[in-house]
């Protein structure tokens, strides 16, 4: 299990993607990313919480205290409509970028 330094904007995008399927708390988001990436990606606590906090400040996500599955206090995050819009743009931008990079890497020149 290696720790990753995500490119700028990537972690935010992943978080928004996870949240687009329902609300989660911080730990849950990290686990979900870990699982969905087939355990290829690990989100470090040191970058997760400040990022969540920053995204909340920008109005992409909203946080609210609630009770977790085993009756524990947890802060649940949900995606806002602004966040949904932003996710769409980011996803498109990312796909173009990834495709471009892949194209260059595949070429034999």
């Amino acid at each position, binding site marked *: 299990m290696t720790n990753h330094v995500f490119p700028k904007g990537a972690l935010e995008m992943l978080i928004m993607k996870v949240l687009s399927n329902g609300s989660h*708390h*911080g*730990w849950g988001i*990290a686990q979900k990313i870990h699982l969905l990436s087939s355990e290829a990606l690990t989100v470090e*606590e*040191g970058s997760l*919480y*400040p990022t969540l*906090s*920053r995204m*909340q*400040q*920008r*109005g992409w996500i909203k*946080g609210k*205290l609630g009770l*977790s599955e085993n009756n*524990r*206090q*947890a*802060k649940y995050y949900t995606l806002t409509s*602004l966040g949904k819009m932003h996710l769409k743009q980011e996803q498109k931008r990312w796909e173009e970028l990834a495709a471009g990079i892949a194209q260059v890497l595949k070429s034999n020149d």
Partner: protein
Amino acid sequence: MEFFNRIKNSILNLFQKKVLEEETKEEMRLHIEHLQERYQSQGMSKSEARKAALRDFGNAEKLKEDCRDSWGTRVISDLIRDVRYSFRSLRKNKGVSGVVILTLAVCIGVNATFLSALYSLVLKPLPVKEPENLVQLFNSGNRSGSRTTSDGYSHSSWNQYNEFKERSDLFDGCALRYAVTELMTVNGSIRRTRGQKVSGDFFNLMGARPLLGRFFSPDECNPTNPEKVIVLTQTAWENHYSANPKILGTQIRIDDFTDGGVHYTVIGVAERTIEVFDAKALYFTPFRFFNRDIGNPAKARYLFNMDLWIRLKPDVSRETALDQIRSMDRRWYEEIADEEGRRGYERYGLHEFDKPHSLERYLYLLEAGSLLLLLVGCFNVMNLNLNRVSQKGYELFIRSALGASKQTTRRLWFVESFSLIAIALGLGILLAMVSVEVLNHYLNTLSPSTIPINLDKRIVAGSLIFTLLLAAVMGLLPLQIFWRTGSIQRDDRVQRTVSSKLSQRLSSGMIIGQVAVAFTMLICAVMLFRSFQKVMAVDPGFSSKQVVQGRLDWSAIGPFYKKRSEASDLKQRIHSTMKDIPGVENVAFIMSGMFSGDLRRGPIAFFVRGEPPNESFLRHGNAVSPEFFTTMNIPIIEGRNFNAGDTGRAVIVDELFVSRFFPDRSPIGLEISNQILPDGEPWPRIVGVSRRANIRGLEERDDGAIIYINRPVNVGDWEYTILLRSSRSATGVIRDMQSALSEIDPRLALVYVGTLDEAIDEMLVGRRSITLLMGVFSLLTLLLSLLGIYAVIAYDVSLRRREIGIRSAIGASKSTIFKMVLNQGLSKTVVGLTVGILVSLYLSRFLEQQLFDISTIDPGIYFVALIVFISVALIASFLPAQRALRFDPIEALRAE
């Protein structure tokens, strides 16, 4: 969108910081618990799992800090911290902070007050429609040689109004306004009130709107219309009729002597802005004066004190308009005027628009004074701040060594200066609010019809901007100087090196500047004070003790005693009733009020019977009853006093008259008149010469000879002042006088009443208040420069500890060191004084009109001011010099 979201969230976060903190803590705790559970499920013991989880999670505090960074509350909480820090630092430096705050508060307060006064009395445009095209016409005379501001200006007349309205093609309209004092019955009691007569077009010309009802119709301005109407001012309506909305159509009783009216129907209430023309007037009635004299086109052009307001067409310049007025008046002079009319033209035939406010000169003087005060205050504050930076040099050095950026230091310093100045601003505005009230109190005496001053919002806003600028300059300039010169030298003597050449030069420049300014103020204040003393020392020439006076005017007598015989009966009754008041020794009547100087003003020609006409001008005449000289204790030095047998043709002249016109012969027996009388008609004859009495006012001492014409008590008059000399206390006599008058007729209300001493006092109110204010200003600037000199010298001494130590170690005597420090202060003061003398010599000429018996280059005054100043400089440098003496050379050297 996102930007606004961030700002909005930052502000929201500020209020829910606690919740955010709590949430962050909770979610981190949960994360650690999950980690711990995972490790436990992998087979670790509980405590081992906990340890591993905590290790994995890392520094939770740093994580929290990173989260806080993104809340956007940092800037604000930093600011709060800075403000706290700056208050702590200001508290530590109580002395310096106190001085800075007080200095600035006084400067800001004084300036805000006088700027507000200047603005609302002089600079503010009239609150009427298009004030830039509106002018008031004055028929001005030659003002040379006259002291009083009212002299030399005559207002306009019905005659001019009519002609301009009909014939001028340059005006969009004109309107007449005329203030009257009448008896109005308010809520059942008769009281003297001020009203205004206006021509029908007045409201329209000013663009005023009725608050209720309407203004005058042309028909209501027709003199033959028996229906009389009135418009109340908003203030009168609110104060006397409790803003009754049903006031329209009700009747008000006014004994109007010009129009003969009694019952007036209220047709409207005018909005408040129109009260700017006369703040004390309660109502408007249509101008329909139908007096023979006013109608006489050959005479009446310059005879009446009516305000003529003219609205110029937009593209017409004032000069063009004045030219047309002058040519119309010239034509009138050549074609229509009779002899009396021509005399008026010769006296008032110059025309001007808009006369300066009577207080304008004073206000500019006071504002100039307060600006100078501000200048000195700023010098001082800058200087203190320069020293503060220098003292903090070590701290600043350590800060920058520890990694504080210039940005942070600058912010901190700005916040510190700003908090200081904000307190000063608050106090200053408070001070201004109080002093505006005080000023309004004086204004009520000096210029009663002016509306009270308000502390202007724009001036407060201006002060705020000024304060911010000052904070920026005050906070940042010394830092800049410090950085340029001080902190680069990274050695332990940083504290000394900051006192660089540049900052030294700057602070001695400021000392010189403020000494010069303060000296100029002192010169002005001393000159005004000496003038005041000289005025007070003028011998009035009569004895005012034990004399009370009360004046009856047209509005009290005119409407009810129309015939001269009725007025004569009344006067005789008053005379005998006054005589019967216990303790009253003498009763006299005088036509022009004491110290009023308003009747028979200007040069009056006189002729001596049997002698060729000459160019002699008599300045003032007054008609007095025979007992006048006895009542006033004015000695007759030649000839005899009036006696009961004298007719109206007996004349007494004063000694000034004799020395001006008959220096080498006795005037007794000469017959004089203001015109050459036809043969057979008896001429007035001079029967006596009195000692000079300054009955027009103390400052009119040399202003014009006075001729007293006998006015027997049985000659009817509609206007006179009653003078009573008695052995009793004034209050009792005044009470008896008023009750005796109302027994004769309850409508006999006195215009004013009081002792002669009070009248003299009141006459000096203007001079006294300006002298007092300038004195206070000058004292303040003096105090500020004392502080300024002290601060600079004291600081200099503290920097030169080591040098002084070495000097005394190698044998400098105490007196040498003492002199050295004193010299420091004195040399700067002397340079400042030299500049100050030159500035004062130049500026004092603007004060000339305010001076009495004082030359603007009076060496005595300069000498006194110099002595005062040198003592101030000595006191300011004495304390630091004393301290320098106490330096122990060994201590001083070891301190390094």
